[in-house]
């Protein structure tokens, strides 16, 4: 299985994901495979251990219907609380900003403000309402985001948005922490008479026992 890993353009191997046989076709690309989506990934000086990309962005050309599942941990991180609040009010969003390095969990009011500031800054650059931006964070619990570094990187991150496969790969790498592989997959299927594409990216290696609702 290890031999099946393809080298990625971002110097991180990709997970060998093989989908089961079915009325679908596995296709290249992850989070940008579906129509209307662009992504980017960049090194924003958030990580302490390496210079891998650590800031990812996924944007939809138009308002997208959104669903979310979230940890049921009572110590839910600031971005989780932020997203839940957004999804209680709205069923459509345009962008998801994800940082690695710091989890922004157990960071109190300051952490909550950091999430608001990041969403607000990105919304301003994209020219969309702040309520159309969702946030995810991963990394060390108890540490605030290196916000200045993150905010400084947003214009570049937005300028790099693309629907190509490399951008999807960069985004998938940017969300990793202790992962040894990046994780992306996409498929194409026919529903009715229409060609539908579903893709995605994920990260996770330790502290993994999700109980989301």
């Amino acid at each position, binding site marked *: 299985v290890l031999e099946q890993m393809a080298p990625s353009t971002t110097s991180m191997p990709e*997970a060998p994901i093989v989908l089961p046989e*079915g009325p679908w076709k596995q296709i290249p690309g992850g989070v940008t495979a579906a129509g209307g989506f662009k992504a980017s990934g960049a090194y924003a000086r958030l990580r302490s251990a390496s210079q891998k990309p650590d800031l990812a962005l996924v944007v939809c050309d138009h308002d997208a219907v959104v669903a979310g599942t979230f*940890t049921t941990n009572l110590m839910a991180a600031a971005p989780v609380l932020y997203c839940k609040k957004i999804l209680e009010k709205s069923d459509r969003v345009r962008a998801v900003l994800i940082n690695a390095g710091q*989890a922004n969990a157990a960071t109190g009011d300051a952490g909550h403000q950091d999430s608001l500031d990041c969403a607000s800054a990105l919304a301003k650059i994209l020219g969309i309402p702040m309520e159309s931006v969702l946030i995810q964070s991963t990394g060390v619990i108890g540490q605030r985001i290196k916000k200045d570094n993150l905010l400084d990187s947003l214009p570049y991150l937005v300028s790099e948005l693309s629907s190509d496969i490399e951008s999807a790969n960069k985004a998938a790498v940017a969300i990793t922490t202790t992962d040894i592989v990046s994780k992306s997959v996409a498929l194409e299927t026919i529903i009715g008479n229409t060609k539908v594409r579903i893709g995605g990216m994920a*990260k996770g*290696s*330790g502290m993994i026992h999700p109980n989301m609702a």
Partner: protein
Amino acid sequence: TLLGVITCDAAVTSDIWRTMVKTAVMRSFNQITVDGDSSTNDTILALASGACGGDLIARGDSFEGSQLQRALDVVMQGLAKSVAWDGEGATCLIAVKVSGAETEAAAATIARTVASSSLTKAAIHGRDPNWGRIACAAGYAGVKFDPSQLSIHLGQFLLMEGGQPQPFDRSAASHYLKVVGEEHGTVQINICVGNGTGCSEAWGCDLSYEYVRINAEYTT
């Protein structure tokens, strides 16, 4: 921490999309485990753009709704399994399939409990076909079943049937675990708990010395 972003270009109503995503998460990301710790940040966000055109999917129980649900399940399961496969320090993915339960939820509970068992995970890392730990974990899952109907397979090896331990080639079973570990492949555990129609899967990984090394010094 588990994070994920799913994108889709189907045209689907908000309430149906949310129901589908919840179902798919229950069948995928909520069925994986690496170390039993639930993060403060676990989040899956799923966006549907409608860019592919086509008729709006407004019913989950329609043919088109079922097709979309199945495709969503497959994408999320592919990603979820890759997270378990990449568990810190892991040398293999552990796939636990449970059948014969009263409901899908009951089967899912048993499967994930077995996948979460530290002793089962450690035995697999040690290439020790110590199947009693699998039976033990199934028993404390909190789901009632008749122990006299329990059967367990480890790979192709039948270890228990009708609640009775079966003779098996211990060294061959150990070799199976060794080969899978060397390939970073998948150890398959199949459990049947009765005659019900409920079946489900869970995915985990072995528990290694390396896991402790990684996490003992995470911030220092």
